[in-house]
């Protein structure tokens, strides 16, 4: 896929070496070694509480490691570091939120900067317009974001993450609560970005099937254990049984993977979905 070996391909977009995260006495994961190449699509799977969102927080420089190191674009991850785009879960925005679609995307470009940003308005407008165009959102650029559908809002999220021209795209369950058609649209937009701009994608999800054709490798986390490999290597009965420590069977039914035996974890997962810690939420801090 990355046939032409160049310098950019030599430096991993994301690199973890012996990375460990612990909350008090609870070891989340330990000794994680992982390189994500530019343009690679890495899916992060696992039940709730296995540290998927925490991995994103580590890459964003929001969660310190207790051991090991984490590099993003060759430099240690730090809070507010550049080169990262972030796509959150779809979450309904308040209907009366005083913000237009173009404003939401613009915040992705310079919302973290101090001052009023009165200079370079024109260049800014052009970049925002280009980002809106790239996700097919030009038509509703001036609509209040709160009045748009979930699918439209999530396209804006992709534009918001891409407008800063990131080399790494972190996605935290971006397809959750979208219908099938919009799941396809959003995942196709993310896939197009990494193919055209060599952006590495780290995609946290509890459901592999919508993105299975796009995934290069999977990081599967279960209760402190993890496995990294291609879907064919990781999504097998033997590997998942070992990870879960119980009999798990992986079936391939038409182009879908069905995991049987990890239902307990999945049922628990669905139940806890509402309380899913978000990147900045209270829960993520105290977890």
């Amino acid at each position, binding site marked *: 896929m990355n046939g032409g070996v160049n310098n950019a391909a030599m430096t991993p977009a994301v690199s973890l070496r012996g990375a460990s995260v612990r909350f008090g006495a609870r070891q989340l994961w330990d000794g994680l070694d992982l390189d994500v190449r530019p343009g690679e699509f890495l899916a992060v799977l696992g039940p709730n509480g296995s540290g998927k969102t925490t991995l994103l927080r580590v890459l964003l420089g929001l969660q310190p490691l207790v051991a090991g190191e984490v590099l993003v674009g060759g430099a240690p991850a730090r809070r507010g*570091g550049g080169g990262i785009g972030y796509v959150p879960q779809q979450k309904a925005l308040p209907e009366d939120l005083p913000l237009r679609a173009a404003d939401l995307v613009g915040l*992705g470009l310079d*919302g*973290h900067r*101090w001052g*009023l940003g009165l200079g370079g308005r024109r260049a800014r407008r052009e970049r925002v317009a280009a980002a809106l165009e790239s996700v097919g959102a030009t038509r509703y650029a001036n609509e209040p974001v709160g009045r748009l559908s979930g699918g439209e809002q999530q396209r804006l999220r992709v534009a918001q993450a891409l407008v800063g021209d990131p080399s790494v795209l972190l996605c935290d369950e971006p397809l959750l609560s979208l219908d099938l058609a919009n799941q396809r649209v959003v995942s196709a937009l993310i896939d197009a970005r990494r193919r055209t701009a060599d952006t590495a994608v780290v995609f946290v999800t509890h459901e592999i099937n919508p993105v299975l054709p796009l995934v290069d490798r999977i990081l599967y986390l279960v209760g402190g254990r993890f496995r990294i490999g291609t879907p064919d290597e990781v999504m097998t009965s033997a590997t998942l049984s070992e990870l879960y420590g119980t009999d798990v069977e992986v079936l391939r039914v038409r182009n879908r993977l069905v995991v049987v035996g990890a239902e307990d974890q999945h049922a628990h997962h669905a139940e806890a979905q509402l309380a899913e810690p978000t990147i900045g939420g*209270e829960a993520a801090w105290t977890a």
Partner: protein
Amino acid sequence: MDRLISFDGVGELLGLPFVQNAFLAAAVLGLVAGALAPLIVARGMGFAVHGTAELAFTGGAAALLAGISVSVGAVVGAAIAGLVFGLLGLRQRERDSVIGVVLAFGLGLGVLLLALYDGRAANKFGLLTGSIVSVDSGNIAVLVGVTVVVLAVLAVIYRPLLFASADPDVAVARGVPVRMLSPLFAVLVALTTALAVPIVGAILVLSVTIIPGAAAARVTASPVRATILAVAIAELSLLGGTLLSLAPGLPISGYVATLAFLSYLVCRVVGRRRGAVRAT
């Protein structure tokens, strides 16, 4: 009606220094309140502003009893309330109940302190309903100074604050110090509230810190346009309210609140028409 709406002798009144001070105070307050209002609305801080205003009242009442400047007492009370509410964090439900608890206690304490004070009754009443004619040139200097500071800080933190208010998860991911901005903005709101309390009164601070923002949000979703419109509505209410209150010699708060409310109704109607056009 003649007692409520009258312009008898307004011409002469406008020539008096204390009346000119009143207009200047109203104009400055309108600027800062209008600038903050859209963000207060976007952050869902209406109740927090109300609670802050009541504690500014408590602080003012305590100052009155202690024989020190009422403005200083109001600023201290509002700043304490702002910090407490700002540090409470992000959980809406918990925040609301704590504000309710603090507000009720503060208001009760304030009423008690006022009852213990046996000076002029006009001073007592002024804290609750406002009395712009009591604004002297010393107060104007404080008003202008605090407004400059609030607007300067707002200009510096505006974009991250808007980001944190509208989209906290992504703002955190981009490195915006969301947790620091929350108490900082609460202090800006508290300072503005403290400025507003002597003018429009503790119970009607919402008429200049919420209504302009809520009205603007009805007609535009553009943050810039919403801010300009909110400032315009706050100015219209405060300057218009001051003018209307002159001849009848009644507290300005009723006029300010009425003008702001009418602006809100107009904005709702305009917004509904536009919404209907957009939907078709």
